[in-house]
Each structure stands twice: as C-alpha cells, then as structure tokens.
C-alpha cells in the first residue's frame, strides 16, 4: 500500500481553461465535486462564521470595560461568550486550514487530479452547512449558556437554554470533519504522483495527513459525549447523574479526549502552512525535514494522551494528575523541535518580508509564547493556582489566534495568487499583518497579567483593580478587529482590480506552483512528476546567499 503511485491519465479537455470558468451559475458551484471549488465554498462559509464569532466576543469585550457591566444582563453575557466559543472552535478553527487550503492545495501538492472521493468531499460541506444551520437556529432561539465545554450537570439538567440545538450543530459538523479526514487520508495514500514518495511530501501535506488521523480518531468521541448529554436531557437516561451511580467527571474525560486533540487539529495545519512559507521566503531548504515529519507524528500521537491536564482540579486522582502532567511536558518536546527547526531554516536565509512571511514570523513568536505558557499550566501546582483564570484564556488564545489565525492569514496570502490568479496589494497586506500582531499582543498580554493576578475567566462582574487590564484588552480587540477587516477589503478589491498574477509569483518550489494560476479543472496540463526533494531552493551545503543565483528569487518582484 505504501508506495502505490498513480499513472497519470491525461484529461480529455486538456485546454487551459481555469476551474473558475467551468460554469458560472450558483448551481454549478453548489453541485460541484471539484476540490478547488469546494475549498472556496468552505472559505466563504467559515469567513461568515469567523465574523459572527468575532462580533459576539466584541460585545463581550465592550461589556467588560466596566467592572459592573455596561449593557448586557449576565444571562446574555453567558450566551455571548458561549456562542463565541462554539462558533470559533467548530465552525472556524477546526475546518479553517484543512477544509480550505487543505482541500485546494493538498491534491495539487501531491500531484493528484482531485481528492479520493470528490462526492464525499461535497457532502462534507453540506454537513458543515447543516451543522451551521443548527447553530444559526440556536442564535435566533436565544442562544446557549453552558460555555463551549457543555459540562454536566448544568448542561444536562439545569440549563434553560437551547443545549440540544447547539449539541446537534456540533455533532453534525463533527461528521463533516470526519469526512474530510477520511478523504485526505485516502488521497495521500493512494493518489500521489510518480516520484512523490512519503519522504518527499511537503510538510503541509504531512500536516494534513496527521491532522486527518486526529480528526478521524478524536471527533467520534466528541459526538458520543454530546449524544450522552442529549440523551440525559431529552429522555432522562441518568448517564452523568450521581444519584444513579453516574459521574459527571466521565463527561469531562470523554469531552477532553476529543477536545485536547482538537487543539492539535487546529494547530498542526498551521505548522504545515508556515513550513511552506518560511522555506519559500527565506529561500532555504527546511532544516531537519525528517525531524519535522517525526515531530508532527509525535504531536499527533502524544496529543491523544494528555487530555487529563484539563481536569487537574476536577477531582482526578493525584496519580493521574502526575501522569498527565508528565505527558504534557513530553508533548512540548516535538513542538520545541519544530520551533528550533523553523528558526534554523531562517538562518542564513535570503529573507523577504512579504505579507505571508510577516504573518508566519508572527506565528513563530506567538506560538512560542503560547507553548511556554502551556508548560506553566501543565505543571500541577501552577495550574491549581491558575485554573479558570484569564491566564488560561490568554494561553490558548495565543496558540489559537496568535498561532492558527496568523498561519491561516499567511496561507491565504501565500496561495491567494494561485487560487484567484490575482495579486493582492502588498503594502496593505504588510500593514494588516503588522497591525494584527500588535493588536493581538495588546489584547492578550494584559490577559496574561490579570489572569496571573487572579482574574477568573467567564466572570461578568469583577473587582475594580482589574479594570485597567480589561480596558487595555478591549482596546487591543479594536485594533485586532481592524486588522481582520482590512484583508476582507483589499483581498476583495484584488479580485476585481488586482494585477494578474504569474503562475509562480513567489518562485516557490512545489507542484502546486508548476501549473497555471488559477489552475485548470484537472489541476495539471502535463503529467506531474517529482524528481527532487521538497524545498529544493539551493544545493545542499550552500545557502541561498552563496548558492545558485538562478534559484534565488529576484528581489522585490512581488510588491
């Protein structure tokens, strides 16, 4: 199975027509099985949800300017931060990179004409839409107030909000990510082009492989835990009811058995994206390719064994705490390997500061801060002090927003010319990237501080001493919001008025760049073939600054 490669079947209509010209009706988009069009459907839908989730938390941040609240009741406040969590986790972050860039780029990267099961791919988008419909319904029917974690007994017995609707939405969208995972795994196993051996797969393809594995194995457990909650709520089956011998802690175990690996579902694709961006914009081979692959797999595997660190104060045995703490430290090792290798990749590079690279460099710094604060929290005594404080909030937002969203933006800008055939405005993109980095830090560094000082998360009212930090954080959120809106404007502008992009504007290696921009429906005009290792930017032992100039990117042609 491992080394089956695909003999290329030349497309019947080997013309140069791009996938965008294969039909212009809305119906042709809604019934497409082309992985590139499905990626765009996904991109549009997750963008909508990103801004809905953003508005929800924007209102929360506005409310938190005052220690006694401004305009929300506590009930509305609970519902807003809950819907923010549910939407951002399951309707933005989980599908963000895999369903958009993974769908679009992965088959091209490995030289395949499409994913293994194109109709299943379309179905996964409709599942997403189905789950999204439930979530919209929850929004209009008054929201849900359990927090995104759905902990019983509150969610199963006491909450008066629409828990079932929210759980149904998350359950359904979970099957959308399982479908994507199955598709990617089969694609990577079966549809690589001649010469594309496992150890020539670009890191982004490897990250998609590992993330698909995690999606397929973790998501069903979330589905089951939500099903059990719903069974208790709807039919009174006493699964988490202590009076019938049940244990609410079991829910937390099942929930985090998914939701901790889900953190890796969200960050691994980001690691894949920045590996592509760093190599391209530093004109360097990836430092320690084998270790990078190994680290991805290690994170995927060990990531399944650390869920208990979410439950240090939930009544878990001290022995379990010790083991989970230890394993959480272990998972930091491959993450650190990746950070060091990215840094070493930059060393002696021919670095350009185009927007994707600025976003990726932002990722590198923020991921490191997020990872190191994660180590604080993996240590039991510190976690007992910091549990449920803003320190935790700041920690995971540094990974999720500073890490994943930065990498998502890096990827969007990096592959934008390939996807649309248009060049975006480099100045505004660089400006937005820097604004986002600054806005992020102004928003979340104060949260680290106030969390450390004792400000609990999810509180509506708080002591006056924390007000200054909340005001700083809310001010940062305004900057961050502006930085998110800018790309919406200049990227849309580029669609209509942007300069036409050459096929390979970044002079990048990789199969996806060896085809027209935008690509034809069958992805390639000639049979793709791989004869070299990935990231072939310079000869071994010779950095770009001394190496073959023809492989180095001429400076400044991108802006």
């Amino acid at each position, binding site marked *: *199975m491992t080394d*089956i490669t695909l003999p290329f079947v030349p497309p019947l209509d080997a013309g140069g027509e791009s996938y965008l010209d294969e039909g212009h009706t809305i119906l042709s988009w809604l019934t497409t099985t082309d992985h590139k069009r499905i990626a765009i459907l996904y991109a549009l839908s997750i963008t909508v949800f990103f801004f809905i989730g953003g508005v929800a938390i924007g209102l929360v941040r506005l409310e938190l300017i005052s220690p006694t609240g401004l305009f929300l009741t506590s009930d509305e406040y609970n519902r807003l931060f809950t819907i923010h969590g549910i939407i951002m986790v399951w309707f933005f972050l989980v599908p963000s990179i895999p369903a958009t860039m993974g769908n679009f780029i992965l088959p091209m990267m490995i030289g395949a004409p499409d994913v293994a099961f194109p109709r*299943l791919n379309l179905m996964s988008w409709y599942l997403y839409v189905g789950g999204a419909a439930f979530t919209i319904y929850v929004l209009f029917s008054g929201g849900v107030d359990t927090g995104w974690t759905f902990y019983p007994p509150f969610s199963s017995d006491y909450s008066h909000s629409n828990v079932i609707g929210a759980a149904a939405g998350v359950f359904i969208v979970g099957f959308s990510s399982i479908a994507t*995972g199955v598709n990617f*795994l089969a694609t990577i196993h079966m549809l690589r082009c001649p010469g594309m051996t496992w150890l020539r797969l670009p890191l982004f393809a490897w990250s998609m492989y590992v993330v698909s594995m995690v999606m397929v*194995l973790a998501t069903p457990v979330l589905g089951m835990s939500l099903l*059990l909650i719903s069974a208790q709520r709807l039919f009174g*089956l006493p699964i988490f009811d202590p009076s019938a011998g049940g244990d609410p802690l079991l829910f937390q175990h099942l929930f985090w058995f998914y939701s901790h690996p889900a953190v890796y579902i969200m960050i691994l694709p980001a690691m894949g994206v920045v590996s592509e961006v760093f190599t391209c914009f530093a004109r360097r081979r990836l430092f320690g390719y084998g270790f990078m692959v190994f680290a991805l797999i290690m994170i995927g595997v060990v990531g399944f064994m650390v869920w208990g660190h979410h439950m240090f104060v939930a009544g878990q045995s001290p022995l379990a705490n010790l083991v989970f703490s230890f394993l959480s430290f272990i998972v930091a090792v491959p993450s650190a390997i990746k950070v060091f290798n990215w840094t070493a990749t930059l060393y002696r590079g021919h670095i350009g500061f185009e927007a994707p690279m600025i976003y990726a460099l932002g990722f590198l710094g923020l991921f490191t801060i997020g990872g190191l604060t994660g180590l604080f929290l993996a240590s039991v005594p510190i976690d007992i002090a910091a549990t449920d404080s803003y320190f935790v909030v700041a920690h995971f937002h540094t990974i999720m927003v500073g890490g994943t969203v930065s990498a998502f933006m890096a990827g969007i800008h990096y592959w934008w010319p390939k996807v649309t055939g248009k060049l975006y405005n480099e100045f505004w993109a660089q400006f937005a990237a820097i604004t986002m980095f600054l806005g992020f830090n102004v928003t979340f560094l104060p949260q680290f501080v106030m969390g450390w000082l004792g400000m609990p998360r999810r509180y509506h009212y708080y002591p006056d001493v924390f007000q200054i930090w909340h005001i700083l954080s809310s001010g940062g959120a305004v900057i961050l919001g502006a930085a998110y809106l800018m790309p919406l404007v200049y990227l849309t502008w580029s669609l209509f008025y942007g300069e036409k992009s050459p096929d390979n504007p970044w002079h990048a290696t990789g199969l996806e760049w060896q085809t027209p921009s935008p690509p034809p429906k069958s992805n390639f005009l000639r049979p793709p073939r791989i004869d070299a290792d990935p990231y072939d930017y310079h000869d071994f032992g010779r950095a770009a600054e001394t190496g073959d100039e023809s492989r180095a990117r001429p400076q400044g042609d991108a802006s």
Partner: protein
Amino acid sequence: MTETAGALREPWPDLRLQREGVGLGMWIFLASEVLFFGSLFCGYAVYRTFNVEAFRIAGAHTEIVYGSINTVLLLTSSLTMTIALRAATAELRNLTLYCLAATAALGAAFVLCKGLEYHEDLKQHLFPGLHFPLSPPATQMFWGFYWIMTGIHAVHLTGGIVVVLVVFTLFKRRVIPVQGSTMEGVAIYWHFVDSVWLVLYPLLYLAGRP
C-alpha cells in the same frame, strides 16, 4: 471485463485501484466508528466497575431469547453479505442480487425483533425514570446504556439496510455494474455493524447471568 462502463469514477485511473481506495476509505471511517462506540464501551466499563452488583441485577432482566435470535439473524446476514461480495467480484450478477436481498431481509428481521423486544421492555417499565422497577438506583445506569447502545446500533443497522436496498436497486437496473467498487464498501460496513452487536450481546445479555 464486461459492462464495467460507469463503474470507474473520477479521479481513479483504474478499477482495481478504485476498489482498493474505497476499501481503504471505508476502513478509515470504521476506525472512526470504533472510537464512537468505544467511548460507550468505556463508559459502560467504568460504571460497571463502580456498580458491580447493580449491573448484575439489571443485566438479568434483559430478554435473552430476543437477543439470541437477533444474534443468529445478524450472523447469518453477514454470511449472505460475504457471499454477495464474492459473487460480485466473480461477476455472478444474479447470485449477488439474491444475497443482497437476503441480507436486507435478515437485517429487517433483526430490526423487527428488536422492536418486539423494546415493546416487552417497556411493558415492564425498564426505562430509567419514576416507575423503574429495579433497585438499587444504579440499575438505571445499566438500562440507560442498554437503550443508548442498542438504539445507536439499530440506527446504524437501519442505515445499512437502506444502503443495501439502494445498491440492490442500482445493480438491478444496471445503473452500476456489480463488480465495481461499491460492494467492497457496503460489505465492510455491514460486517462492522454486525461485529458491534457481537460486543453488545455479551455486555447486555450475558453479563448479568450466571
């Protein structure tokens, strides 16, 4: 190869690879399903460890006759499904159709039998709630798992029956040829649903009996 037109789908270059791909995809999906049911089994194991005696008492009240008949029905359906798959690979079209019909019929018989059993259970108020007849309270936990496990299994099986009937119709009308990759995926899924029952049967019907 006769009448393979319509069997090959994008993006596969040939039918052998496509069949292998469909098999691989289905196995990966089943890995996901294993974790889905696995979290239920895990919950059952945890609670049984906490409430050994209650699970023994509650387990003695399941309808073992219905359960055993259903086990026989489902195992037989797996046999007919296997024959259907082999027949399809050997391009024996009629045998494939007969065996698919038999599989769907056995599956339907299982669901019917399960319905009778549910009726019997409800007559004895064996649904967790106010009128639950057994004690201690943790016996309700066993029956909570009983309803969820058998319910989810029945949903899977019903889905399987629908798929078998659809595939049967498509084969019958010669929309797709039997030797395509379809049978591969259908058969693997059917066997999985069957093997889940082989775990449920001892957990629910045998565990409470000496």
